């Protein structure tokens, strides 16, 4: 058979992939391949285009060499754009000549959309798509100080990072109200913005550029519809891409309303001799702006050209997972809940900067989409759920909750298919883990060594443990519930050992019942148990090394190593004089000041050595520590109650203050929150607390084990119409029973859910005294209440304890150089660049 000619227009990523695949297929015998590329260079990896600014050359990014094209017998015409197609005579034309084809493949990709703004074509305006674009930007940046990227999407943010890496002050101007409007929602976009601004890129949203004119402080000025303006030396447009369909349009091929060359499942256009693949192709009314779907199209077309009857492109998943300026961002499936009836679960931790959203089907059984900002840890698992249509566990929120909040462990590892990717760093699937277990691994450690799972970023460690545990259990291997490698006991068992044997130090406990030196899991756990049992000062010599840094320094460490301070304000009631003291202290030490959700005031930015001085002043004004750092009672929130309110039936503030003073300082497995409402209108939101008290006209109703925040749970009604004394006795018993029996870092909500017999059992123990321990629990509580001391008072009065608060013991005047500050909305806040990966 005579050779036919197959022409490919476009030598980009997908065009090249097509050639690679086609050359390996039988049909290549029958075709002479000819390629036209508009760019000067041979196909290169556009996905990693930005690395060109990091020092990579075209050769580094190239997808093949000229020698490879030679060896395959491909006729390569670079720097030679096709200018027209004559379908009738099957001829393509370039500035250099006319070429006959039998089969024609369009792989022309897309071009950056430049919004029609007056002045958008002057010197200093660029796009970000090709090596040539980057050369031009680099040349211009050499004489520039600032640069603006128009468009806050995925590519725009990448371009902004590139400008920053060229040493420019980078700005992003976005028309929409948030960044990455396609992939993210308002909350996710907001968090991303905050993180990116922390890295020094300035973000301007809801800005419509009307005109670009010569600037006053820089080369150019962007004028916005709201009459503001921004001066900059160069502008990069990254406002989306448009399929490059000019040739197809001109020769009368069917194109989509908004562009794109219409193709069928075999990637063939309305002309049977012409095909289109990659970003220029419109399949099922959709354009695919990612490389993977383009590759799939290329392979489909190769199969079709090889007469494979089953060859069909069936769409592609557009989920994306990336690091933008070092910030994890993930968007999966129907991220915007556009499917009718879809429901959302959101988790937003402002402290650690994590935002996670799951979009569930109407019946809550399937995951439809997800958004992640700050940490892509759950990405792979969530993607598995979406792609495989796996039924969600009963508590789907566990998929996006941090483990310490009762998160990941609740995930049904059983539900994952063997193909589910558990560790994305080393591409380990659940199947691989099962194989390792079948080959003799009996714990997480050996599975890690065998498969390398969780030895990369470590983000999957909780999931890995879950899978290993569940697989071991299936095989009848007993799963270890040890606290850690140092103690073969659960927290509850340790509590019992400590209490019964009167053990008062970690050293005693570990030498009698454990091994080794301890670690950051068992030390704080034992520290908390010892405090719950004996209530000794957290800074007593033996206890210092046990505490998490927050407990050690009795303040909450923030990400730049400074601390926040929260004095106790019982019931949220504070005198004007005390409020003034807080203001004065904050002012003197330049502390960022914020009102908390628990009706108190948080003062941020104190250095280690400032803590005792600040507390001296606060204590002198009558303040006590608020234990915001401890796993202990936080606040008792209250509404104003019958004293002022027209509807109040009891003095809720008085009760809240009494409860807060009673339980303050008590160490528990996790933090405990309470609230008291003065009537059923429930203004104190008591039903979202661990212990909620609501006034009735006969007394108090008690609700227990509620939770707000990450994993909301309504508290359960526990007892009704209690007198003041009955109320306190009941709370005493429940709290103490929780302290004794809960797991490490288990909130009351999760504790109750895991308590065999549940609420009824708890009622029997507490209200009917079925275990006969009621009095003992009360007595234990009474001891703790009577031994309470303000830890801060004890610390500032003791020179030995104060020594702990020296920033650098040999250099009292030395300031920590990484603590840099800037001002925002009239207050000081930290600037901090992340140094390592």
């Amino acid at each position, binding site marked *: 058979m005579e050779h036919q000619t197959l022409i490919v227009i476009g030598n980009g990523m997908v065009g090249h992939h097509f050639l690679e695949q086609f050359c390996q297929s039988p049909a290549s015998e029958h075709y002479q391949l000819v390629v036209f590329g508009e760019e000067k260079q041979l196909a290169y990896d556009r996905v990693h285009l930005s690395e060109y600014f990091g020092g990579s050359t075209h050769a580094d990014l190239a997808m093949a060499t000229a020698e490879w094209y030679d060896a395959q017998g491909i006729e390569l015409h670079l720097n030679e754009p096709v200018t027209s197609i004559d379908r009738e005579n099957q001829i393509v034309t370039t500035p250099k000549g006319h070429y006959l084809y039998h089969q024609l493949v369009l792989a022309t990709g897309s071009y950056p959309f430049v919004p029609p703004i007056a002045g958008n074509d002057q010197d200093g305006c660029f796009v970000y798509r090709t090596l040539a674009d980057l050369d031009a930007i680099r040349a211009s940046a050499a004489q520039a100080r600032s640069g603006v990227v128009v468009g806050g999407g995925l590519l725009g943010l990448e371009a902004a990072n590139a400008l920053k890496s060229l040493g420019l002050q980078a700005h992003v101007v976005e028309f929409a109200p948030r960044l990455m409007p396609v992939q993210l929602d308002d909350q996710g976009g907001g968090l991303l913005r905050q993180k990116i601004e922390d890295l020094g890129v300035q973000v301007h949203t809801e800005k419509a550029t009307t005109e670009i004119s010569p600037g006053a402080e820089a080369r150019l000025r962007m004028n916005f519809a709201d009459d503001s303006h921004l001066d900059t030396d160069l502008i990069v447009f990254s406002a989306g891409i448009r399929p490059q369909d000019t040739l197809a349009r001109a020769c009368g091929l069917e194109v989509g309303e908004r562009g794109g060359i219409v193709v069928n499942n075999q990637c063939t256009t309305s002309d049977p001799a012409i095909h289109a693949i990659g970003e220029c192709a419109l399949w099922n009314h959709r354009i695919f702006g990612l490389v993977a779907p383009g590759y799939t199209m290329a392979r489909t077309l190769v199969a079709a050209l090889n007469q494979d009857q089953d060859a069909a492109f069936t769409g592609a998943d557009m989920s994306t997972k990336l690091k933008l300026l070092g910030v994890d961002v993930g968007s999966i499936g129907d991220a915007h809940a556009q499917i009718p009836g879809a429901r959302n679960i959101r988790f937003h931790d402002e402290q650690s900067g994590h935002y996670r959203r799951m979009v569930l089907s109407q019946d809550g059984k399937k995951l439809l989409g997800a958004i992640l900002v700050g940490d892509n840890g759950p990405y792979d698992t969530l993607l598995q759920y979406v792609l495989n249509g796996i039924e969600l566990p009963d508590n789907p929120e566990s998929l996006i909750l941090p483990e310490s909040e009762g998160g990941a462990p609740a995930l049904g590892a059983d539900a994952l298919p063997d193909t589910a990717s558990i560790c994305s760093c080393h591409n380990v699937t659940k199947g691989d883990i099962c194989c390792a277990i079948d080959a003799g691994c009996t714990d997480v450690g050996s599975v890690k060594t065998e498969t390398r799972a969780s030895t990369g970023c470590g983000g999957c460690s909780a999931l890995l443990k879950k899978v290993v545990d569940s697989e071991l259990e299936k095989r009848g291997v007993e799963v270890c519930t040890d606290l850690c490698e140092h103690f073969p006991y659960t927290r509850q068992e340790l509590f019992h050992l400590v209490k019964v044997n009167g053990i008062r130090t970690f050293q005693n406990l570990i030498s009698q019942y454990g091994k080794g030196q301890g670690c950051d899991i068992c030390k704080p756990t034992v520290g908390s148990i010892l405090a719950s049992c004996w209530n000794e000062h957290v800074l007593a010599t033996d206890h210092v090394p046990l505490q998490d*840094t927050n407990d050690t320094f009795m303040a909450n460490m923030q990400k730049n*190593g400074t601390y926040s301070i929260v004095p106790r304000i019982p019931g949220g009631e504070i005198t004007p004089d005390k409020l003034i003291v807080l203001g004065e202290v904050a002012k003197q030490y330049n502390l960022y000041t914020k009102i908390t959700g628990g009706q108190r005031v948080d003062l941020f930015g104190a250095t280690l050595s400032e803590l005792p001085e600040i507390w001296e002043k606060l204590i002198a004004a009558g303040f006590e520590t608020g234990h915001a750092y401890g796993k202990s009672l936080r606040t008792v929130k209250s509404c104003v109650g019958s004293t002022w309110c027209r509807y109040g039936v009891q003095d809720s503030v008085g009760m809240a203050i009494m409860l807060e003073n009673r339980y303050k300082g008590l160490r528990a497995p996790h933090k405990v929150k309470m609230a008291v409402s003065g009537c059923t209108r429930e203004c104190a939101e008591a039903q979202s607390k661990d212990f909620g008290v609501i006034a009735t006209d006969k007394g108090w109703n008690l609700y227990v084990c509620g939770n707000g925040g990450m994993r909301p749970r309504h508290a359960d009604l526990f007892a009704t119409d209690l007198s003041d004394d009955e109320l306190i006795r009941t709370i005493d018993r429940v709290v103490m029973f929780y302290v004794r029996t809960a797991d490490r870092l288990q909130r009351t909500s999760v504790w109750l859910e895991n308590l065999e017999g549940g609420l009824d059992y708890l009622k029997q123990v507490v209200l009917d005294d079925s275990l006969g321990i009621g009095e003992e629990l009360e007595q234990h509580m009474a001891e703790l209440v009577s031994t309470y001391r303000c830890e801060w008072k004890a610390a500032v009065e003791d020179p030995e304890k104060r020594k702990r608060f020296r920033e650098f013991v040999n250099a009292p005047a030395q300031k920590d150089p990484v603590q840099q500050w800037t001002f925002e909305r009239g207050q000081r806040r930290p600037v*901090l660049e992340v140094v390592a990966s």
Partner: protein
Amino acid sequence: MKAPTNWVPVCTVDDLVADSGIAVWTEDGPVSVFYLPNRLPALFAVSHTDPFSGSNVLARGITGDINGEPVVASPIYKQHFSLRTGRCLEDEGVQIKVYPALLDGNRIRLEVPVVQAAPVAA
């Protein structure tokens, strides 16, 4: 050839806290010194800077051992660093500086690189 170093005194035994760390300032930047009385040797010194957050906080982390290796857990994101090698247990690619430490009477000395005086610009 080994770069020149000095054994500089940074603090005294009284400054140390058993099973915990303190921070000192050296010409090479902030260093944390740990004292683990149940081990031999009992003194360890590593960089005070947590490479994951960039903050100077490691001396305020919890110490312990993982598979026998003495470690400190960063108080920020909880990664463990070997006190002997500085290696991060969760991320092989990350390592913090380790400083040889010794007890000289009552004083703790660390071996730190000699800082070359910068040539004065003409």
